[in-house]
């Protein structure tokens, strides 16, 4: 049979793909283990993980990630719920608005933020706290396409009206409906969106860099400038984290929507 024959053309491209994936992966791993001359060791990882500046910037970015996730759930969950329940005619507009962050490159977006909020009347970049508010808003905007779409797709799979009416007839108020009835039904979708948003904030460079906050991205660039082996170790760690996030997202959402993008380019 012709169909049984091994397709050499396909095999060739599969091998090209595998090589392109694995050579840099292996190369980075090998490089990251060679900090001590003449032998393989985990020294580079030790140095990275015990650097107080690394820990501080990781803590900052992780905190911002959690805040971003919390704010975007509080903002998008009620919005999507309401759109499905009462305002289906507004969904196309909201969909376009939520894809805008794809059209505006992050570097342009941060330019706009700085021009708008650093001067009068807002003066948001003058203290660390107000800059953090601004940067959180920025992160929420960047994660908006993923969070919104994740919740929106989840909301499509449940009977919003039925659940709402059932809850109302049992005497629930809006808050109870949203957080005791709708949210538990959307656990997977919300968790998927939250993981993407969190990973996005952790890997983000541009906002942290240009708003001058001690985030992980700017720290990594600085280490990349000064050191040789530690960056490779950080690349491996980030690879591992991305992998874990993707597996968790897979578990949370089971292959919905388009591919998420976890690290900023």
């Amino acid at each position: 049979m012709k169909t049984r024959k091994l397709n050499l053309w396909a095999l060739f491209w599969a091998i090209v793909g595998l090589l392109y994936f694995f050579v840099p992966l292996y190369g980075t791993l090998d490089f990251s283990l060679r900090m001590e001359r003449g032998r393989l060791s985990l020294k580079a990882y030790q140095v990275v993980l015990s650097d107080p500046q690394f820990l501080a910037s990781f803590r900052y970015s992780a905190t911002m990630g959690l805040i971003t996730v919390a704010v975007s759930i509080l903002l998008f969950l009620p919005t999507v719920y309401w759109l499905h329940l009462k305002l289906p005619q507004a969904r196309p507009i909201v969909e376009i608005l939520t894809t805008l962050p794809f059209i505006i490159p992050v570097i342009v977006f941060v330019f706009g933020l700085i021009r708008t909020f650093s001067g009068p009347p807002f003066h948001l970049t003058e203290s660390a706290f107000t800059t953090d508010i601004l940067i959180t808003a920025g992160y929420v905007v960047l994660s908006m396409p993923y969070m919104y779409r994740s919740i929106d797709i989840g909301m499509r799979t449940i009977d919003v009206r039925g659940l709402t009416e059932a809850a109302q007839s049992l005497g629930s108020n809006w808050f109870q409906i949203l957080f005791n009835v709708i949210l538990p039904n959307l656990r997977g979708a919300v968790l998927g969106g939250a993981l993407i948003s969190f990973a996005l904030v952790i890997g983000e460079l541009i906002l942290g860099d240009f708003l001058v906050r001690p985030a992980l991205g700017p720290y990594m660039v600085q280490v990349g400038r000064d050191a040789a082996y530690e960056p490779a170790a950080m690349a491996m760690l980030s690879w591992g984290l991305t992998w874990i996030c993707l597996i968790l997202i897979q578990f949370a959402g089971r292959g919905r929507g388009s591919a998420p993008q976890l690290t900023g380019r």
Partner: protein
Amino acid sequence: MAEITANPESVKVVKKVRVAPAVQNWLGVLPFFLFVIVFLILPSTNLFAGAFQDQQGHFTLNNVKVILDPFVLKSYLVSLQVSVITSLLGGVMGFFIAYAITIGRAPRWMRAVLMSFSGLAANFGGVPLAFAFIATLGHTGFLTGILKHICFPAAGGAQTCPFDIYNAGFNLYSVTGLTLTYLYFQFPLMVLTIAPALEGLKREWREASQNLGGNTFHYWWHVALPILWPSILGSSILLFASAFGAYATAQALTGGTIYLVTIMIGAQIRGDVLNNPNEGYALAIGMVVVMAVCIVVYSLLQRRTTRWLKS
């Protein structure tokens, strides 16, 4: 519904009930719209307005001429070059790899590995990607070291090392190096976006083509590609846009020595390298225009695609 009675008090109530729901419905999405207006629309329109003002705030079209500045023009050309080349190369590579793992019958383990790695690599960008390529193809990188030591005896007792890439003029911290690095997320992105379309090709179409006496070339040229081209073009545009807007990888790889538009905008934010903030806004808005064109074309193509490839 409230009942209408003669009592003027309740007439008022009825009116309220009739008007209120529409307003109330929009009130529910007010926080979202407020947020988007303040933190997305306002900054964007602010840049847009700045692009069409002179330094005294009067309307002008002069800033658009910033594109004629040799540095700006060069940065746009380099960005376009990198984006076009990586989306073409990534597109071709990604297409054939997607072909190999969908209808090409590559060994099953390869398919599984390639598919899950595409998901990983398409998401792997930014600073760590630059680090990975420095560790692999930098001056002292892993692959550079291996290639350098592949040597052959040459005439006169000397040795020739044909794969000493830095000796041969390769430099990772150049446009070529950046292209290789971007390809690491570009071709997996293509695999992810084109694989569903390839899977949507129906076996019957191929059989029908064979029954009519067509060979493999006829099938691909007259049947498969005409169906696939909107998906292929659409995916390539996605690739183009993802390279065009990229900043972090280039910054971490080259320290800002390659003048991409994004790097140029970064320099402008830091220190007004154009000596005219308004020209900086025009430079930034130019990027948005390019991206917007991409997305519009992409969504038009997407509509065309769904016509044939519905399962």
